[in-house]
Structure formats: C-alpha cells, structure tokens
C-alpha cells in the first residue's frame, strides 16, 4: 500500500499539518498526470498490491480525481481517499454520479475531521453534504495536536451521518526543524488519559478506535491497554498497534519518501527503484539505521522487551530525528 499525492493544493491550513514541510518545498500547482498514475499502478500491480490511497493536499481538488478512482477500481485496486470532506458541489455531484456505481468494497474515504470550531459555516456545510452522500463509505480520522481535545463531536457525526463506526486516531507528528503543533512525548500520558475519558461515549455508540503510527505502548497502563484493545476489537476485529513503518508517499513529481514528517529525508525519484519491494527495503533500512542510533523516543526503549519482540516500534521516528529530549521513566516517559 502507498499514498499517492494527486495534488499539493489544500483547502485547509491545519496548525498541526505534518505535510507542511513537503508542501512548502514543492510547487502547489503540481498535479499528478495520467501517465504517472498508470506507472504507479503498474508498479504496485506487479508487486501484487491491491490497495492504493489517494492523498493531497486535498486529492479531490485534482480535476481527474473521480476518473482516477474509477480507473484504479477498474484495475481491481481498493482505493482509499484521504480527504477533509470539503468538495465543491460540482465535484461532489460528479463523485456521487460515478463513484456510487462502484461496488462498496472498491473504495472508501478517510475524512480528517477537525473540531467544528476550526471550520467556517460554509466548510461545515460542505463537509456535511459530503457525509450525507458518502457516510457509509467514510471513516473519521482525528489528529491529536493539543491536550484538551474533544472527541464528542466525532461520535455525534458518526451517529448523525451513519458513518463507519470507527475513528482512526493520529498523533500530530513533528516535522524535524519545523514548529508545527504536536503533542510532546512528555505529554503522552496525559493525552492517553484524555483519550480514555471519551471511552464511555464510544462504547455507548459502538464506536471503535484504531491507532495510526507513532503511539508508544508504554504510555498506556495495562488497564488502559485492555480497554483500548477491547474497544478496537469490538469494531471490525482489528487490534491496536504501536507501529512506525515507512508509509511510502509518492508525490506528483514522482518523488517518493518514507512518510510526510520525514519528507525531508532521503526523498528519491521513484524511477530509481525497480519494484515496490526495493522502495520498502530502502526506507526500512533508513528507519533501521536511525533506530540503531536511538531506539525510540524514550530512554527505556533501548531495553524494552516489547520493543524487542516487535509489539511497539518505540514511537515516531520524526520525534527521534527532531532530537526530542530523552526522558527518564516516571517523568512523563515510559511507565
């Protein structure tokens, strides 16, 4: 699986945006071409991968967005679109007319939903118009970037628009050298406690959660772990993970990198590789080399049994590269 950036333009300007560095370094007007999309699809088809994600910026801004989804679905890829849900009425109508002809299993949306206070009325109106049409195909994504976050509105949206009863939880990652809003590792315990406080609403509404990369296992008590595991498995049976792997982002200029926060590191042309496996090996090797220097975001990661046996990656690599202060246990570090 890889993330293809269809365009670098975005309709939002989120304070935590971890794509910021890449976007600042790139031409906003750049859009992926048909020829390049076909090249990527070929590369992944040869690798027998059957899942591709479309990202941006805001991927639905690409004039050929709907055509791309139809095309990839016709090639038997499952297509996930990462969107903020803000589409022009014309684009939404186009998506409704054509994407609803597809089998539900061929595509889905992950909608990154900020708190309503961060959106204008018009933006909220458009998000809701999108959810009204594609609610059953949409999973909410929530990026935690401050400690007094609210999740109730997510549960409300899920209920109101009959969305997939699952929330993908992301941590706002640091961009090494930049000052985007993030949760500092010393605050991870507090963040987990806040997260836990929303569990009753989620259980009541049968909403499960899944962790995106960057969470560290040791920030959860055994009791919290048990609760989150039960909540995760009550959904589609998935388990919770504490991973940090190369995600493979591919830009419209056909450069590839490990993930957005690491877009400054080892960005390569996709044409330098002969296969998806070669790309993955290259970035796994990069991850491995960094982690040989510093195992994880906490001091304790070096001797962690769970890290050793692969249950936890030791937090986000961007934190390590950002030269995050390594904290001892009991001071906001590992429990």
């Amino acid at each position, binding site marked *: 699986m890889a993330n293809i950036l269809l365009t670098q333009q975005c309709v939002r300007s989120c304070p935590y945006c971890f794509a910021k560095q890449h976007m600042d370094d790139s031409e906003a007007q750049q859009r992926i071409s048909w020829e390049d999309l076909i090249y990527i*699809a070929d590369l992944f088809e040869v690798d027998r991968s059957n899942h591709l994600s479309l990202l941006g910026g805001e991927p639905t801004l690409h004039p*050929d967005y709907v055509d791309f989804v139809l095309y990839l679905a016709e*090639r038997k890829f499952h297509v996930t679109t990462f969107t903020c849900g803000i589409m022009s009425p014309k684009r939404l109508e186009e998506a409704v007319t054509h994407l609803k002809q597809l089998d539900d299993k061929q595509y889905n949306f992950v909608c990154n939903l900020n708190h309503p206070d961060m959106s204008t009325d018009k933006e909220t109106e458009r998000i809701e118009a999108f959810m009204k049409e594609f609610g059953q195909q949409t999973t909410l994504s929530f990026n935690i970037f401050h400690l007094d976050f609210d999740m109730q509105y997510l549960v409300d949206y899920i209920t109101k628009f009959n969305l997939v009863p699952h929330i993908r939880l992301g941590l706002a990652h640091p961009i090494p050298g930049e000052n985007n809003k993030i949760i500092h590792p010393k605050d991870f315990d507090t963040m987990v406690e806040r997260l836990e406080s929303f569990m009753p609403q989620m259980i009541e509404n049968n909403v499960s959660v899944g962790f995106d990369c960057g969470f560290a296992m040791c920030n959860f008590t055994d009791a919290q772990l048990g609760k989150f595991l039960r909540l995760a498995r009550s959904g589609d049976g998935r388990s919770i993970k504490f991973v940090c792997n190369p995600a493979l982002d591919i830009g419209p200029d056909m450069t590839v990198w490990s993930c957005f926060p690491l877009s400054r590191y080892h960005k390569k042309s996709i044409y330098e590789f002969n296969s998806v496996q070669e790309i993955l090996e290259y970035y796994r090797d990069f991850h491995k080399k960094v982690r040989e220097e510093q195992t994880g975001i906490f001091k304790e990661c070096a001797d962690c049994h769970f890290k050793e046996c692969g249950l936890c990656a030791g937090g986000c690599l961007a934190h390590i590269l950002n030269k995050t202060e390594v904290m001892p246990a009991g001071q906001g570090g590992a429990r």
Partner: protein
Amino acid sequence: MKQKPGKEKMIVVQDGSGLEKKITKKTLVVQVDTIEKAVPAFGKWSSENRVFCVVVHEEKPLAEIELSEELKIIPLALFLKEGGAPKTVIEKSREFREANITLYLPAHNPENFTLLQILASLDVACGVYLENEAKPVNWDSMNDLMYYAAYSPANHARVEPFDYAVSNYDPQEYLCFTTPWFENPRRFFYMDENENIALSRKKMEEGDFVATGISSFDSLDDNEKYKEHLTMWTNQFIDNQRCASCPAWRVCGGAFVSICESNPNYFQFFNDLLEAAEQNRVKQEQDTEWRL
C-alpha cells in the same frame, strides 16, 4: 526479402459495394462506416466467405460507442476520430474487454496517447493510427506509448502497431509496420465495386489499381505491376536515399519518408522501436534455449 508463411492474402471490401454475391471462398476484411452496420455486414459477407475482421471507420467518439452482445462476438477493428471523456471510456472498458475488438485512435491528438495507455492498462486491445500524413504527430508521445507497450512489466493489452512490430520483427524478413491498420501490399488488397484492386485504401481512392476482376486476385503473384510494387523499396538503396543508411529501416520500411525528413523525432521513434524489437527477439531466443 522472404515473407513469413501463413500470412494469408485478403480482399478488403466496402460493405454496400455489391460484391458480396460475386466473391466466394475468400478471406475478407469488410469495411463499414458505422458500428451499427457491423453485425449485418458480418452476417452478409460471411455466408460465402470467411470474414477475418470488420473494420469500422466511425465518426462517433469512443465514449459514445455502445457494444451489443452480437457485436461482442465478431472480430472488430474500430477506427475512431476521437476518444471522448476518459471517465466514460473507463466505465465502458469492461464492455470493450469482453469484445473481440481493437480500438484505434488517431495520432495527431496528444490526448489520444493518454487514453490509449489507459485502455491498454485496462486490458483493452487498442492502437494508434495516422489518420492523415499531413496532420502533425508528436513522435515523442508516440515513443512514450511504444515504450509502455513494449517494456511495461505490468499486465496490459496489446497496443498497435507496436505490438505487431515487436512480435513480428525478424531481421531476415520484411516487416510492414502498417499491417495492423490493414495496410500491407503483401496481405491486404482493396477492391472497389468495379472489382478494381488497389494496394492500399489511399491508392484505391486515388484510382491507382494493379489489376481488375475477382479472378485476377488469385494470380496477383504473377502480375508485373504488383511485382514491381513489391520491389520498389530497393530503389531507396539503389538511389542511396536517406533510408539506405538508416538502421531503423528494418521496422519502418521507408513507410513515411516525407515525415522522416522533416521530423528528427520520427527517426528516434523508429530507432527505439527497433531496439525494443531486437530485445524481444533476443529474449524469445533465450526463452527457447532455456526450454530446450
């Protein structure tokens, strides 16, 4: 140059020419001007002959083509003027895939190269054609499409005329690059309603015939005018024309000399096509050795 065995000679006829009652036991290519006429034409002409293919010269864009179940079972070559919206073409690709069809789009429109790549990657057999030599062609785009057709490791349908050139290339034999367009003086013989025989569609339109009469078709190999035409290529070498020193002649055959002189990318395209054909030949030989 020798000709590969098994390359059957065919008469290319226009539906409505009235020849269907006169021609029997021949292999035919039947031309029609709209897709709606393809099924009736196939039925009519195949009662006394074998119809190799129905060629449709269609004015409608590809996106507007509807394929009935009857159309899907007859061999079709659809020469179109334009493609239309990619979205619609993608949505119809399953229909095209199910049919025994090759879709051709003209080379002068750059958007067609993209659409052809989309079609091929969706496993729909397709091709590019030169609608009119006077219309400029982006030979770089042609080359990109050829590279995709010849080298992409992913599963895709054939893209003509590249697939034909690459898979039929033999350094010891004459290769007619235009064969997938039903233009090959060794295989396709255009016959009008007066039974005049020409060696291409253009020559028929210009009234440049090599023989007349259905009976003369079987004795064409003894026809002096025809034999002279087949050896015309030697003049390029006798007169030491540009083609005489061109390595790409093996795949181009001097088919478009006028374009070649005015566009250096044309030469590059055929040079790269030759390289693709050579690589394929070597690979085929290696595969054969390995099997032995």
